Each structure stands twice: as C-alpha cells, then as structure tokens.
C-alpha cells in the first residue's frame, strides 16, 4: 500500500477549475517533484493535501486513512508537514521558540499542570528543549537559537522553516519552493540537505520547485501540471525530453540544461 494515494481530486473556485482529476501516489521513501508554470495549481494541490482547501471530488488517502477535508492541524497530527512558498516563520519569536511551537500538539501537559508547575510540566519542557536543540544542531542553527527569526538571513530562514516542519515528526514533508530566492551555491546545499533529510529521517518528500537543476537532481519522479491537469509524469530524464513539457513549461533552452 502506498504511503500517499491521491485519486482524481478536483477543486473549483467559482467557474475556474484550479485542479482537475489530479492523481498521484508516493511510497514511504520517495522524493517527488511537482512542477509547472505559475498558476498551474501546484500550491493548490499542497493546500488540498494539508487541509487548507477541501477537494470538490476525489479522495486522498495517507497511511491507509482518508484525509480529504480534515482540518490542517489534524492533518499535521496524521504526520504530514509543510513549508510555505512565502516563508511563514513566527517572526517575533526566537529560532528556538519557532521549533518549540511544533511540539505543542505532541505534548500532553494540561493547563492545570502548566499553571501549577507540576513535575510533568518540567519534564516535558526539558524534553521539548532537548529535542528542539537537537534539530537545530542538525540544521546548524543551534548557535542562533536566541536570535529572532526575522533577523536570520534568507537561506537560514528557509532552513529553519524546514527544521520546524520536521519537528512535527512527519512521514511526508511538503516543500513549497524551498529554493526560491537562493543562489546556485545555496541551492546546491539545499539539494544535499533534502537527500540527507530523506535518509536521516526516513521520510517521503514532495516538493514544488521552479529550479530545474534542483528538481532534476533530487527527484526520482516528477509530475508536471499545466492549467490544473497533469500533462506528464515520470523520471527526470523522461520529463526533460517530453515535448509537451518543453512546450508548456521548460522551453527549448532549458531542455538542454
């Protein structure tokens, strides 16, 4: 049974069918790319996967359960986590506090024990602190744990957002244009980071990206969307040479990149 199984989901906004009959499936340890021109419906697919929108038709099964129409926080509880196209960090909180947010839903301490400062409060806080610091160390952000998120350089904000998403302990990580605004050097590092995350955390990763070098180098499977429909699907090599993809998205020159 695949980890993620999307079967013909569609969503309409008024008269516009943003995504129609979108199907895909992912195994436990896949890295899959979702590409296509602006407005093709890539982020809409993410939003349906994470409960921001409810598809008008079709089913989404994750880990054997149907998740279409659940609230975003319930879906996080089912172990799907995401980053955002326009970074959505808690800007006025420190790096460490940003990561700790992800532990709220995983911890159990009741309001009463928080107020009364019962031993369970201290035990849990210590554990959250320890796990958050471990994650920050992995992302080389531990030295900046007390820095406000808004003061981090752009590349580090992207990294922190990934760290925060991983702190929710996902089985599937959705990355929405992780390389946006990065220079080639940073993109190169990101590609390595993505591969490393897959191995280290043993999770599946689905990413939306415009940077073809990144997509081609990390994804095993690529899906191309145009006007809300899948126009091609397959290995990078196949996508690169697909005439429909070249026409709709890549263009002649990129095909030779």
């Amino acid at each position, binding site marked *: 049974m695949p980890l993620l199984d999307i079967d013909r989901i569609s969503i309409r906004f008024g008269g516009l069918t943003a995504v129609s009959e979108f199907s895909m499936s992912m195994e436990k340890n896949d890295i899959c790319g979702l590409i296509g021109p602006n407005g093709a419906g890539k982020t809409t697919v993410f939003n349906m996967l994470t409960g921001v929108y409810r598809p008008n038709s079709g089913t989404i099964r994750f880990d054997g359960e149907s998740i279409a129409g659940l609230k975003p926080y319930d879906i996080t509880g089912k172990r799907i986590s995401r980053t955002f196209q326009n970074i959505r960090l808690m*800007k*006025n*909180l420190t790096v460490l506090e940003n990561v700790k*947010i992800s*532990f*709220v839903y995983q911890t159990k301490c009741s*309001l009463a024990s*928080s107020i009364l400062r019962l031993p369970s409060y201290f035990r849990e806080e210590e554990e959250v602190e320890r796990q958050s610091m471990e994650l920050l160390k992995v992302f080389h952000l531990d030295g900046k744990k007390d820095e*406000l998120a808004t003061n981090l350089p752009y590349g580090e904000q992207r990294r922190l957002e990934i760290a925060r998403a991983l702190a929710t302990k996902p089985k599937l990580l959705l990355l929405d244009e992780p390389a946006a605004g990065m220079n080639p050097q940073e993109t190169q590092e990101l590609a390595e980071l993505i591969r490393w995350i897959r191995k280290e955390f043993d999770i599946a990763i689905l990413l939306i990206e415009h940077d073809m070098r990144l997509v081609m180098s990390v994804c095993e499977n690529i899906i191309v969307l145009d006007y809300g429909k899948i126009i091609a699907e397959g290995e990078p090599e196949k996508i690169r040479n697909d005439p429909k993809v070249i026409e709709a998205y890549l263009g002649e020159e990129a095909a030779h990149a």
Partner: protein
Amino acid sequence: MTAYGKKLAIFLAASVALFAVLSALMFQGLIDAYLQRILMTICINVILALSTNLIINFTGQLTLGHSAFMAIGAYAAAAIFKVGVPFFLSIVLGSIVAAIFGFLIGLPTLRLKGDYLAITTMGFCQIIVVLIQNISQLGGAQGMTGIPGKTNFAWVFFSMIFTILILSHVVKSRQGRAMISVREDEIAAEAMGINTTRYKVMAFTLGAFFAGLAGGLYAFLMMFIEPTSFNYFKSIDLVIYVVLGGSGNFAGCIASTTILTILPEALRPLNDYRMVIYPLLLIVIMILRVKNIRIPWLSDFFSRFRKGGDKNAAA
C-alpha cells in the same frame, strides 16, 4: 526546577515586602484613605489589564468587550453573596461565572478576525450591559446597592499577585506558546498542528475569569455597581492600558496601568481642563512610549515574565 523555585521565592518575598511597606505606611497614616483607594483601584485595574493582555497581546485577538466579563463577575459575585455565600467564595464563583460566559461568547465570536472580532465583542459587551439593565432583581439601570465593603487592600493586592503568577505561568507553557503562535501566524500555527480555535477560546476564558475576579473585587470595594460603568468605554480603557504596555509584556502592562490610573486623579486640580489634558497626555505618552515608559530596573525585575522576542523589548 531549582532555578524556577528561586525566582518564585524572590517574587513572593518581594511581593510580601512591598505589601508590608504599604500596609505600614497606611497604618502610620502616611497613605491616607484617598491614596489607599487609588492604590486599590490600581491593583484591580492591573488584574483587568493583565487579563486583557493575555487576549490582545499574547493571543493577538482584539477584544473591545472585555469589561462585560468584569460586569458579569461583579454582578454574579454580589448576587451570590446576597444569597448567603461567604465573601471569598462569592468572588471565586463570580469569576467562574464570568469564565463560563467567556467560553460561551468566545466559541462563536473567535471565528472572526481582527476588526470583525473587535466589533462583535463590543456588541456582546453592550448586550450584557443592556441585559443587566433590564433585570430588576439585579437592580436594573439604577444599579445594585447594599453590597458590603468587604474588599480591603490585602484582598486586591494578593489577588493581583495571584493573577501575575498564574498568567505568567500560562504564557510560559505549551498553552502559552500555542497562544503566541496564533498571534504570530495563524496559518503556520495550524500547519504545525495547533488547533487555533481551541487556544483562542482558552485565552478568552482565562481572560474572562480574571476580569470576573477584578469585577468581584470592584463590587465589594465600591459597594455599589451600575451597568453603565462596565460599558465599552471601560473596555477601551483596558485596550489603552495594554497597547501602551507594549506587546506581550507584563512589566510594561503593570507600569502603564499604574500611570494611567493615577493620571486622571493627579489632574483633578485642573477641574474642567482635566479631560482636555488627559487625552493630550495619552497622545504624548503613546508617541514616546517605546523609550520612556520602560523603567529599566523594573523591566529587569519583571523580565522573567516577559515572553522573549517581542519587538518592543528589543527596541
């Protein structure tokens, strides 16, 4: 644990010391009945401001109807007392009634955001005031009389300390973290697994509880309560306290409440000009607030209550 225990001990010792000094001054007559009354009003206003602070500054939900919960707490406590329940228990029960109302009102209204929420809460506040005006058993528009003056300085002072303690514990916990994440970015908070409605309602209910506590103390201090003293003008006052106090900052909130409670009294000799000078001073204070209202040593003293990383603290 030990670090926390130490801080707690210092805080409690400092509170008791401050109480002892003020009590001694009152006993000596250096603080007269008038000043004593102002001090008590300050304590009540601090409770109110901190409870508003939790909702507005920590959870980021602009409420313009918080005084409704003060009204509910005041009337409930007074009514319960008149049935024959002891003073302390009446105040506690009054707060619980206010919290229940907070929960019931919060559940539907907190689905709204920003200015919509503000207007709706203002509407609820007005509904509560009008309701009380029309319940003759509570004295209706004429107000409720015959409440004994049970509130003394010790009650209000230690209620304030209790409020500071509880709310500072709340904001530094997983629940508080969830509330702050709602303020920062609701969409991101939900994506990180936080049921934002749950924590908004939690903040609202807690806020209502402490507003109810302040209301109960107020009723037994004034010995007379009338619905119009809890209308939205009072709510606006609360918003001014917390906005001036800075975002998510206990010390700033306490300082601004103290100053803004004293100010109208201090301006009393100006007679009619008072209501011209007071708003002007408000404007000036708002403009200067970031640099000047923060008394450094006081901020340091209270820094443990401040949620790290708020932008005004960094300024």
